[in-house]
């Protein structure tokens, strides 16, 4: 299935590029080989699916100028190192490592292949041939938080997290800050399941949360398992993560955060082809269209939709930043003074929870 789809895409892209062939610029150069490694399956309909959509986008846009390969379900550990080396040996000159835990392996392999460019998503270790890229998912979380604040009847939400890293902590905080703007009593209970994708664990966590009376569930894991449970149990709702998951929970998905990596992958591929690639450190969000908000579900009323859209557009035009003080942590200490906005560096090392977050075990 993968092969035929890729072939179809290639043929389609080649056809689309036919008029361009007059320029001859593409036709003669060796295609740039690009490798992608995913921590989960491209069929997770979430995070890894979204990265793979970005890969397909690059193929569509650049046609014969590129040749892409992906490896899925790569464990975060020495196995990842082997896959990276394999890709580098096969002549891939640009390699995207799309999960946080690939960091050590990327740095090790990058030293062995100085002529290969690596880009690591959501990481923090750079090198002369290792760039970083990330998306401001927290902006999307804030929009979800507004919806949750309005719709939750119990005022209690659950949040299924993978690991308590700043990336995840920041998302939880953005969600609850936005929800408390609507309902000051709103609280959230995070649970960490120590994996990015394990549908069984995600579903178990969702069930346990629903049994405890939480009626909204958000997740920072890769697939739609929690949403499916939410749909089954008929709670108020949940949110799609990485991609629109409404197919799995048509009534229950309130909205979704869509990761749109395509434009970034395209820009990096072009930079390598043009010889202008430098190890970047990008962190783009709603404004740059890297983070998108999917369609709102049937339970979201016009009024709530308007409030959510206000949060979305406010973050795009810069009038709203969810991490603007006063912000207290969950022990009651003021962490950010009124009117002060947290810096990116502070956000990227965030290891404390805001008021309203139950301290996870």
């Amino acid at each position, binding site marked *: 299935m993968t092969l035929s789809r890729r072939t179809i895409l290639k043929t389609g892209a080649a056809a689309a590029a036919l008029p361009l062939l007059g320029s001859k610029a593409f036709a003669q150069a060796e295609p740039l080989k690009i490798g992608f490694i995913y921590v989960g399956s491209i069929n997770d309909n979430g995070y890894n699916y979204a990265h793979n959509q970005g890969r397909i986008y690059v193929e569509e846009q650049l046609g014969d100028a590129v040749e892409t390969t992906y490896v899925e379900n790569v464990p*975060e550990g020495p196995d990842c190192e082997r896959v990276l080396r*394999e890709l580098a040996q096969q002549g891939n000159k640009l390699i995207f490592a799309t999960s946080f835990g690939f960091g050590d392996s990327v740095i090790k392999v990058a030293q062995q292949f100085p002529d290969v460019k690596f880009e690591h998503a959501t990481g923090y270790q750079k090198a002369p041939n290792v760039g970083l890229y990330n998306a401001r998912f927290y902006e999307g979380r804030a929009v979800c938080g507004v919806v949750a604040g309005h719709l939750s009847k119990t005022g209690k939400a659950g949040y299924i997290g993978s*690991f308590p890293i700043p990336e995840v902590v920041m998302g939880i905080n953005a969600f609850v800050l936005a929800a408390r703007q609507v309902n000051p009593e709103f609280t959230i209970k995070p649970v960490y399941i120590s*994996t990015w994708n394990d549908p069984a664990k995600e579903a178990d966590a969702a069930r346990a949360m629903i049994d405890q009376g939480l009626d909204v569930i958000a997740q920072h894991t890769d697939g739609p398992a929690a949403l499916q449970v939410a749909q089954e149990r008929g709670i108020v709702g949940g949110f799609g993560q990485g991609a629109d998951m409404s197919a799995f929970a048509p009534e229950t998905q309130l909205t979704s955060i869509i990761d749109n990596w395509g434009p970034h992958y395209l820009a990096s591929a072009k930079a390598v082809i043009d010889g202008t690639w430098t190890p970047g450190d990008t962190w783009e969000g709603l404004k740059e269209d890297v983070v998108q908000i999917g369609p709102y579900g049937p339970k979201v009323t016009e009024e709530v939709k308007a409030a959510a859209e206000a949060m979305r557009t406010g973050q795009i035009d810069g009038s709203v930043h969810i991490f603007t003080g006063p912000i207290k942590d969950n022990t009651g200490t003021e962490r950010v003074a009124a009117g002060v906005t947290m810096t990116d560096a502070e956000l990227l090392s965030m290891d404390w929870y805001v008021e309203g977050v139950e301290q996870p075990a």
Partner: protein
Amino acid sequence: MPFRLEKRQEPSRFMVYATPVAAVLLTMIVGAIIFTLIGYNGIGAVREIFLTPLTNSYKWQDLGVKAAPLIIIGVGLSIAYRANVWNIGAEGQYVMGGLAGTWVALATYNMTGPWILPAMILAGVLGGALYAAIPAFFKVRFNVNEILTSLMLTYASVQLIYYLIRLPWKDPMGMGFPQTRLFAEAARLPTIIPGTIVHLGVPIAILVAVLAWFIMSRSVFGYQMKVVGAAPHAARYGGFSENKTIWLAMLVSGALAGLAGVLEVAGPFQRMVPGFPTNYGFTAIIVAFLGRLNPLGVIFAGIVMAITFVGGEVAQTTIGLPNAATGIFQAMVLFFLLAGDILVRYRIRRVQAAVGTA
């Protein structure tokens, strides 16, 4: 039931050793057919998974690194299974070995010295053995099925990793990521071939297998294991204690799984991370059976399993085969092996309706 399995008087010795080879060949043939039928390049899949890792010399280092823990754990399991002691929790003992080694590495973080690595290895071996002692104790004392206890303790050990790396052992430089710090130089397993990733664990694995073969075939211990497994009554008459055998089998298989764990954490990982349990302990069960519960056979079986892992990744990058294909091929090997074993040990007899007693 129109057919019945009837035990053969004497299974063919040749067939006992030919079955694993036949299982691998059948897997290749059936795999090629299945993957062709569902629209992949089936021949290519088999070539990339089973041959490329062997023909591409650059992949040999990966085979060695991947096979080493499988061989070490597989040898331990083959000893235990010979004695009919079903230690299914090697994965948990592997984890505990890794954790014990990590503990030493972190405790000696600011020290140097050639004694650190041996101390870690010793701790790993003890960690694995002690963890296997729990099911052994329950089996001997209360006759609790060791399959259940050893398997379930695996999940407990994984939770212990999560606890330790989130709280007491968390990396101060890790941006909150649950992992320990990178081990100091003295706590890392050296590579033995410069420029490759082949570490000291690879020759250790071979050494372990050869030693185990020697002990199993030449010592009273080995004889005891085999007799208790093959003929428990005779063993009892012969004065071999069943309980002692259970203890020995569990401790030896646990110790070796622990050894694999500490070598893995000190070698390829060099720190404890949530992704440390990678199912080596479970795959080694296939390895032990594929190797005919013979330590030397386990070496070859470990390499075969390593080939499917490494080849599975090659097939993903070269012909777009999904990752799940690796698992399908591995499962097919085990299936054909077990099916073949049945046919070697039993014959299928047609049963007349009158004779058939349900």
